[in-house]
């Protein structure tokens, strides 16, 4: 008799745990390499989000497991990392990465495994075209390029632009192309385009060639490691023209590499302004500062929002089944995050605002905010 009750209760216990859905998330970010500050911030934001989730919804929190992998800022290691997460750890959702080239290299494996990828920060439009399981919780480069072009034309009044792009980065090439289209459409002229290779440190020859064409603004749509040096070298050469960039600039290392004199007076578009007066943003900035002893950049805010979007979709789906999760993520509407409200559109991209920041000697300050409908850049505070 006792044996029967014992057996029955074990079976009941087992089925109880089997029916509670659990979500395994594999987080792939650049912990080392040229985009390491992006990875560090993304993971910090994610950690803060999970702690906040633990406080606000402990039941949901307990069903989510996160496994982290380093993609070393290059597409080959990203592909290896994602294969390990899918085949060995059997994750349901891959969360990451930042550089579009690296995220693109992960999409094939994810689609083949029939799983889902959510990138919080890759902005090249090609990423979400790779399959119906690929989502992003940030804006895309056609929007970002137009934002920068319109900012240059209308806010700065510049008509002649030169471009210095990173020819190994899909993000850089894409952003340059979209900027060029929007800039020309608005009546501007691209006087010169040069390229560099990420990892190289000397850009004087490219800068010399650009200087000869006399631009009044230069688009440098690359990552902070090279952009910092480009700013430093341009300043040393006496080539003092304002530079424009995208969210690849958003790192504290930019100011250290360029030096206070060279880095000030330029502009970049990104997802989040740390001096935004919105109380939710201010709370996020304060908490992040207290916990990590550094000011948060866009990647921290995107990492924070991204994992919470995944958790929210999982809660609505109620299961870790891929089809249900895809539907739940795709129907995310008006999800309030610190980097703005996330609404998924038909191409599985998020419609979000962009901000343009102006660089000072050691940080950046708010210059303009642009709504996703595109169009004119307006100053609002």
């Amino acid at each position, binding site marked *: 008799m006792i044996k029967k009750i014992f057996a029955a209760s074990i079976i009941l216990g087992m089925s109880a745990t089997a029916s509670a859905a659990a979500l395994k998330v594999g987080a792939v970010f650049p912990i080392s390499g040229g985009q390491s500050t992006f990875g560090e911030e993304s993971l910090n934001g994610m950690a803060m989000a999970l702690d906040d989730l633990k406080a606000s919804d402990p039941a949901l929190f307990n069903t989510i497991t996160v496994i982290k992998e380093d993609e070393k800022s290059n597409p080959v290691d990203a592909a290896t990392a994602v294969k390990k997460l899918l085949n060995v750890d059997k994750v349901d959702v891959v969360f990451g990465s930042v550089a579009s080239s690296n995220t693109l290299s992960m999409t094939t494996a994810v689609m083949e495994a029939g799983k889902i990828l959510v990138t919080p920060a890759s902005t090249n439009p090609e990423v979400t075209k790779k399959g119906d399981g690929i989502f992003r919780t940030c804006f895309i480069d056609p929007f970002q390029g137009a934002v920068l072009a319109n900012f240059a034309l209308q806010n700065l009044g510049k008509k002649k632009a030169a471009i210095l792009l990173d020819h190994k980065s899909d993000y850089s090439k894409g952003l340059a192309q979209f900027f060029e289209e929007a800039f020309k459409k608005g009546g501007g002229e691209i006087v010169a385009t040069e390229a560099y290779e990420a990892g*190289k440190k000397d850009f004087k020859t490219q800068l010399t060639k650009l200087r000869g064409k006399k631009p009044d603004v230069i688009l440098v749509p690359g990552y902070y490691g090279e952009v910092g040096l480009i700013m430093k070298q341009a300043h*040393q050469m006496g080539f003092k023209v304002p530079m424009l960039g995208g969210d690849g600039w958003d790192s504290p290392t930019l100011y*250290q590499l360029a030096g206070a004199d060279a880095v000030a007076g330029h502009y970049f578009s990104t997802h989040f302004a740390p001096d935004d007066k919105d109380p939710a943003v201010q709370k996020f900035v304060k908490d992040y500062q207290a916990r990590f002893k550094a000011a948060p950049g866009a990647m921290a805010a995107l990492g924070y929002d991204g994992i919470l979007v995944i958790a929210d979709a999982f809660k609505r789906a109620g299961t870790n089944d891929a089809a249900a999760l895809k539907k739940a993520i795709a129907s995310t509407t008006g999800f309030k995050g610190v980097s703005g409200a996330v609404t998924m559109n038909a191409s599985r991209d998020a419609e979000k605002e962009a901000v343009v920041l102006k660089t000072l000697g050691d940080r950046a300050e708010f210059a303009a905010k642009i709504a996703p409908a595109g169009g004119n850049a307006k100053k609002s505070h």
Partner: protein
Amino acid sequence: MCDWGWRTLVAEFLQFLINGISVGSMYALIALGYTMVYGIIQLINFAHGEFLMMGAFVGSVVMSKFTGVPLPVALVAAMIGAGSIAVFTELVAYRPLRNQARIYVLTAAIAVSVLLQNLGRLVFGAAAQAFPAQFPQGNLEFGTEDSTVWVEYSQLITLALCVALMGALWIVVNKTKIGTAMRATSQDIDAARLMGVNVNFVISFTFMIGASLAGAVGVLYGMQYSIDPLMGVQPGLIAFVAAVLGGIGSIPGAMIGGLLMGIIENLVAGYLSSTYQGAITFVVLIIVLAVKPTGLLGKMTTVKV
């Protein structure tokens, strides 16, 4: 009259040339390390780029830990640091394999290279950092409004320092006893041993000198650009090609090869396209190996069987 157009072209060419010579002098210093080690023990030390990186970090740590330290002191510290690591590497990784087939020590060199890169990552962090000292800002301007050539102070100082170090090396190699011993050992290691040269010491000394030059370049790189644990990989590769171009084993060859590589890199970026800047290094290597494998100043040696 449009002769200002002609002047602008000349100015642009001179600018590329100056950029190339400045960068090339650094490549020359690094190439010297490759060429000397090859001349003595016929080893391509793939870890040489990492000696550059170690020198840069030693210099950086010295300047950050001991505030108020003047740059020359940090430079010397970097050179000593890189030199010591090289001597230790030779003792531990290369010497035990000296009498084995060449392939073993070559593989060991690759292993040391990866080891040092990852050691650097562990100790110093993987992200790029700014070097604690910078060159004085400013430049000299020559020419007129539309055809100006700028020479930055950093480029002048780099060139001057590299030339000075090359001169010091030349004196050591040609005018001192140890230099004679080095030349003897690279000519015929067994004969040198028979003549009483302490061959082990000479080999260690060669490693030390080559690496200390690379360490000095590491500091220069840091001051001009930034430092990170993988910073030695690309300059190391380019300097290796420079040593091959100039004639591997030939000291004047390494100097010429280095300067040429810097100039070629910048002219290609200037006149063809900056996207080819990375590829041109290897195009040069292939051409040299296909056309004149001994390099510009190298000599064909027949091996008596």
